[in-house]
């Protein structure tokens, strides 16, 4: 069985101008979204208190709000999560200073007083003080930075300059667009999402490397004069079924994670789904065509 008929050659390079324009547009939209709408950082990075609570009876968002109103938290973000019959809510407030411990106790106390001790199930408490959130932010960005450096060095060592530039540009492309989608969707950037971005970096590169390896191999085989543009086309076409199969199997499992994995892991799965789509696209339409710009450096 084959999803791509053997010997098929698609003229990917013909679409490179269109692809570059689409990507440029997506990147601009992403950057605008990030700077205009801003990113919805989770409490890991802003500091704050987040309490996930489930009630054993029907409770409305307004009731939760009025329960915590008297302790000065009427402006807290209250979000109903899960199925309606779960009566589950996420309460979030910013924390001033290094410790928000009092807020946690106040919220819990107010909920128990209003709804009754045994009807309140505090499922999760996350409290991150300012000092810790600073650390986490720094570590999060440093990890992206160091992963980038590490990968750059590896590619530099394994491939020539042109390939390295192509791979890195494709990576930046993928990460920027994924972050842009988060800005547009208003989804929360938390620690697991940073982890997901790093995983995307790894996977997107994975795809790119498979294509690059094939290009190198074909150049070696051609041994003499060849048309780089059509060589790129055939290399991508030869690896296309693998690219599609792997992306699909990975996408399917992440989709399962997205649909059934629960709220805690939802944004993580979403980031990887977006990253996979963008990464597959970029390894075909961005990473390889960039090599054309470097063709004069090759004999």
């Amino acid at each position, binding site marked *: 069985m084959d999803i791509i008929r053997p010997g098929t050659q698609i003229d990917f390079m013909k679409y490179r101008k269109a692809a570059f324009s689409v990507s440029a547009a997506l990147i601009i939209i992403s950057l605008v979204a990030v700077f205009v709408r801003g990113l919805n950082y989770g409490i890991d990075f802003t500091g704050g208190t987040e309490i996930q609570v489930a009630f054993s009876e029907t409770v409305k968002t307004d009731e939760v709000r009025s329960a915590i109103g008297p302790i000065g938290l009427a402006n807290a973000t209250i979000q109903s999560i899960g199925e309606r019959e779960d009566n589950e809510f996420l309460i979030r407030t910013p924390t001033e200073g290094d410790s928000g*411990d009092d807020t946690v106790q106040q919220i819990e106390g107010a909920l128990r007083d209003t709804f009754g001790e045994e009807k309140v199930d*505090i499922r999760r408490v*996350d409290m991150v003080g300012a000092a810790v959130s600073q650390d986490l932010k720094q570590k999060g960005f440093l990890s992206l930075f160091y992963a980038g450096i590490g990968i750059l060095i590896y590619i530099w060592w394994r491939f020539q300059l042109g390939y390295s530039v192509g791979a890195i540009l494709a990576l930046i492309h993928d990460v920027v667009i994924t972050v842009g989608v988060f800005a547009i969707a208003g989804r929360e950037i938390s620690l697991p999402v940073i982890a997901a971005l790093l995983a995307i970096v790894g996977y997107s590169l994975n795809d790119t490397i498979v294509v690059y390896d094939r290009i190198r191999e074909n150049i070696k085989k051609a041994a003499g004069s060849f048309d780089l543009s059509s060589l790129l086309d055939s290399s991508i076409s030869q690896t296309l079924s693998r690219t599609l199969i792997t992306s699909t199997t990975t996408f399917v499992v992440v989709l399962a994670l997205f649909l059934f994995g629960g709220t805690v892991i939802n944004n993580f799965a979403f980031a990887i789904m977006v990253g996979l789509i963008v990464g597959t696209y970029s390894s075909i339409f961005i990473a390889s065509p960039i090599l054309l710009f470097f063709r004069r450096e090759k004999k």
Partner: protein
Amino acid sequence: MDTFKLKGLLILAVLVVGILFAAPSFFGSKEVPEGWIGPKEKIKLGLDLQGGMHLVLRVVADKAVESRMNSTVSDLKAQMVKQRVHYSQVSSDSPETLRVALRVPDDYGKLADLIGSGYPYLQEIDRSSKGGTMTVEYRMSAQEAATIRSQAVEQALETVRNRIDQFGVSEPSIIPQGDERIVLQLPGVTDPDRAKALLRNTAILEFKLVDEEHSVQDALRGDVPSGSYVAYMKEGNQPILLKERAVMTGDLLDDARMRIQSTYNEPYVEISFSREGGRIFERVTSENTGKRLAILLDGKVYSAPVIREAISGGSAIIEGRFTDEEASDLAIILRAGSLPAPVEILEERTVGPSLGRDSIYQGFLSMIIGGLVVVAFMLVYYKFSGLIADLALIVNIVLILGALAVLGATLTLPGLAGIVLTIGMAVDANVLVYERIKEELRLGRTAKMAVDAGYKNALSTILDANITTLIAAIVLFQFGTGPIQGFAVTLSIGIVASLFTVLVLCRWIQEWLVNYQKIERISI
């Protein structure tokens, strides 16, 4: 024996070891049955899966410096009176500085001697005279301050350990982080508020005499007699005038137990002093019979009973309308010792047992659904070769679980997600090889040649592709915290395991098929 057979044995050995180590984890919370010969360690579940509490505490070590300075102030005052140094004021504006105002500037020499012999850690930083008063300023040496700070953190760590031990948490992890932080992992804590209260109480126990010569009302109006101050009762918040000096402190405590008063069924805490403490307590009570003695914990007055007679048994009781829980926790805290400085909670992550259970269920559900789809796809698309890939996938998961158990690594929710991702990615190496084999077959190669060329040509690509992901995973492990590290761990193990299952296991099976079974047509 040829290398091929040797390889087969090696694979078998890895498989057996993997299964042996993975097996105990499949019993879940149940005991591993008697007679099981393999290792018994199960995979450790992270707090996000089994429920529990993660806390980052900061020891406010500056407070320890401050309280040392405060005791230096009162000590110095007493010494100056003894040595006839005429001072008008001794004060401390910041934790590390102290200022003495001398009424008689000529006393400076005596003061300098006193400081030099009794308080070598104080360094003079400024001296000025104005209108017959000389003001001398001192600063605590940086070395001394640093020592106090690090001792405070060390002692706090010890105290926190003691308290948690006595509270009864199974397998807690309590480790220092940086200069002032303590990171606690407390699995299975069902009452987070109680645990936090237990940790945050500095639990400084003091006994002070009640100042009965002056009236509280006058003091409240601002006329506080020297050497006394206004404190408040824990119950009812009534003001009470106390002598500043503590006649005794909790350092000399030997034990503390919760007791129940039989007549009213009310819990109280009985404390017993060390031998030295008992002697001091006896002396204090005999010297002050008929007066009231206040018992303070963290500055709040719990009770202030009248001393009826000298107490020689070396024990005392603390009452305060406790619930059973409060009384037993107070006993724990007193037994475990006081904190040298207050602590504040910088980060708290608590996952209740219900959410932990849900997360495990949801994690495994997505793993099984995703896994089944991938297995079915490989079977349909690559037929018999797909079956081999599916076998490799199952071995892969077993190896990941076995490796987690061996390494003592913690399985977290993102870690589960990492395994799910691995399932999607592990077949990638298979796909790369199979697509190669297909190409070779199309070029008219024999089955044997196609298999050889397929694995050989795909090798460098597979390594390149996986090493980059491994780099990302290792960086993630370095910088991540808790749950995220769990993701990095399963991702890394998954990559290594999939390299083994595809490049060694699958290759061996297919070589066996074409070389030994003389298969001429590959079902792919």
